[in-house]
């Protein structure tokens, strides 16, 4: 919500002389919608009777989520041996799914924090849902390392508490850094999300007619009164949280990539990993934002608020980050060739032509080739196609983590210890179910919380500018 105090009245004299061409900005809200329309639209989603599609989808999501529950119950009651992990691949789908879900979350923070600092006003239409996506994705991510510890009832050993022998976790381990990075990320994202929502919760409270709605939103709104003395502190806090979230989100995926990069496994031990992981995370996250927002936009007829300009921007970010990811793949190969290290060279040739070549080429086609279609305006305007491309991107990004994790472990230094990793049905159940778990949370969010940040959307309308006449 931070904004520049641009003063329209102070026009430099030079501008009258050179008379620059007027380049109108794309309108963010179409059809000149007013403040009341925005309030009605967003509050209407919460206030209307629960729609049938919601009930059906929610039941389906709950059913899918039960797969994770079954998978985890079987795992905990039997042991991690039920996952496909065995020597030499000790890190299979668990880390793949963890990195996948954390990566998805990153677009939410990018939209809420980095685009806020860059004063990209179009972010307002999508930031609330994207932040919700972040929080729920991090929750899904957290399941995997937590249960991968094997005896999950010792999960508290991850935290800086002494165990029964008085031994503490040691802080030289990237896995311990991860605990701090991911838990901080979750906490700060949740604070940022909630704080940004307070004025909108207040707006729902002010319209509430039923007792439970008055109480529920009233308590959550914390007695917000929309006074400018409050807004002043709120805006400052919002800007600061954006400023804190920016280095945070970059550090989280950097530290996640340290899980690999700090080890000495060929194909993992590379300095390119932090920027490469961050670009990939934003890439997959934006794809997920579009996957979620395009159907919601159609269902709730949000076409005036999330218009072609927003979709174009997101497609272009996917194109840019997808190209960066492709460049990173090429760089990895170059560095492997240039390193003169036989193991490093082998690791990359093996990725492209070894026993997991199928996964590698799925990754390349989904991540490098598919997003290039976004160069074309016709493709960006065809929302069904955009949605399908976004699904491909997410499939591709999952395979990227699979390729990195599994190819390097399955074929490392000694051919005598090579192996082939396949997931078991328990792995598949657990991962499949997380999509249900994510959807359950997201559907609850859509139904009960303001889907769009009303105050922020109102702020970017032309009539919100006090200097416009």
């Amino acid at each position, binding site marked *: 919500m931070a904004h520049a105090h641009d003063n329209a009245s102070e026009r430099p004299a030079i501008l009258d002389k050179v008379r620059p061409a007027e380049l109108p900005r794309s309108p963010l809200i179409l059809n000149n919608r007013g403040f009341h329309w925005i309030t009605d639209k967003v509050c209407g989603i919460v206030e209307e009777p629960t729609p049938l599609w919601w009930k059906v989808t929610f039941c389906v999501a709950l059913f899918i989520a039960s797969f994770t529950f079954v998978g985890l119950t079987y795992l905990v009651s039997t042991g991690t041996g039920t996952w496909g992990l065995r020597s030499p691949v000790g890190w299979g789908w668990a880390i793949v799914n963890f990195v996948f879900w954390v990566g998805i979350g990153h677009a939410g923070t990018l939209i809420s924090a980095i685009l806020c600092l860059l004063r990209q006003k179009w972010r307002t239409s999508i930031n609330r849902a994207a932040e919700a996506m972040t929080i729920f994705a991090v929750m899904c991510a957290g399941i995997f390392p937590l249960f991968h510890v094997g005896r999950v009832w010792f999960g508290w050993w991850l935290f800086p508490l002494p165990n029964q022998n008085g031994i503490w976790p040691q802080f030289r381990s990237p896995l*311990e850094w991860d605990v701090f990075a991911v838990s901080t990320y979750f906490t700060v994202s949740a604070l940022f999300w909630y704080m940004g929502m307070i004025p909108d919760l207040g707006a729902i409270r002010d319209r509430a007619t039923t007792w439970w709605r008055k109480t529920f939103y009233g308590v959550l709104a914390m007695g917000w009164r929309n006074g400018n003395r409050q807004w002043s502190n709120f*805006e400052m806090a919002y800007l600061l949280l954006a400023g804190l979230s920016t280095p945070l989100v970059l550090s989280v995926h950097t530290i996640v990539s340290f899980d690999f990069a700090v080890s000495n496994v060929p194909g993992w031990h590379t300095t390119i990993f932090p920027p490469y992981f961050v670009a990939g995370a934003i890439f997959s996250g934006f794809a997920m934002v579009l996957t979620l927002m395009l159907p919601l936009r159609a269902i709730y007829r949000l076409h005036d608020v999330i218009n072609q300009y927003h979709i174009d921007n997101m497609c272009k970010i996917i194109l840019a980050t997808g190209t960066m990811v492709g460049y990173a793949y090429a760089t990895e190969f170059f560095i492997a060739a240039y390193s003169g290290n036989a193991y490093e060279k082998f690791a990359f040739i093996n990725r492209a032509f070894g026993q997991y070549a199928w996964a590698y080429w799925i990754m390349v086609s989904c991540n490098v080739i598919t997003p290039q279609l976004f160069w074309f305006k016709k493709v960006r305007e065809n929302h069904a196609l955009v949605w399908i491309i976004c699904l491909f991107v997410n499939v591709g990004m999952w395979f990227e983590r699979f390729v990195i994790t599994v190819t390097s472990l399955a074929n490392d230094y000694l051919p005598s210890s090579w192996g082939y990793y396949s997931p078991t049905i328990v792995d598949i159940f657990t991962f499949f179910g997380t999509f249900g778990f994510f959807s359950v949370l997201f559907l609850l969010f859509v139904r009960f919380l303001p889907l769009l940040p009303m105050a922020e959307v109102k702020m970017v309308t032309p009539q919100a500018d006090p*200097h416009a006449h």
Partner: protein
Amino acid sequence: MNERNERIHGVACTFRKAADVYHAAEKVRDAGWKKWDVHTPFPIHGMDQAMGLPRSPVPRLTLLGGVTGFLTGCLLTWYTNSADYPIVVGGKPFWSVIFPFPVLYECTILFAAFGTFFGQFIFNRLPRHHHPLFDHPQFARVSDDTFMIVLEATDPNFHVDESRNFLQSLGGQEITIVRD
């Protein structure tokens, strides 16, 4: 004469346009008011200047939180890995600022975020669920599409009739008394 009625919270009026309330706020500021506020559905660009508000004090708590977080991280890693149960890893020093740096970094951000988040609540005096404005009939529209200026009775400039006339001269509509 200042006939202050203890049961009056203040006088309120509404505006329909952001530009109108902005210019009205400048006039209230210039008239020397201290206890007053502008209620808007969204933060208006430049309203802090129009009201003559000082810079928000929230960053002080952010800084305090950040420093506390960094020191907490240092203390935690030093105490656990060097003082209470020294762990030998590769013959390296038991503690330095380098190896746990990711932990210190994350602790700094975490505590700074707590400072900012709670700072916002502390300086806004929230949560507060009982405010006279909540009983005011026009107030519910402020979170929708209406702008409101409230002159509070605790300000030395306050006088029921004069303040009402003042709001009228600013172009305010629906001028009403807010009961305490």
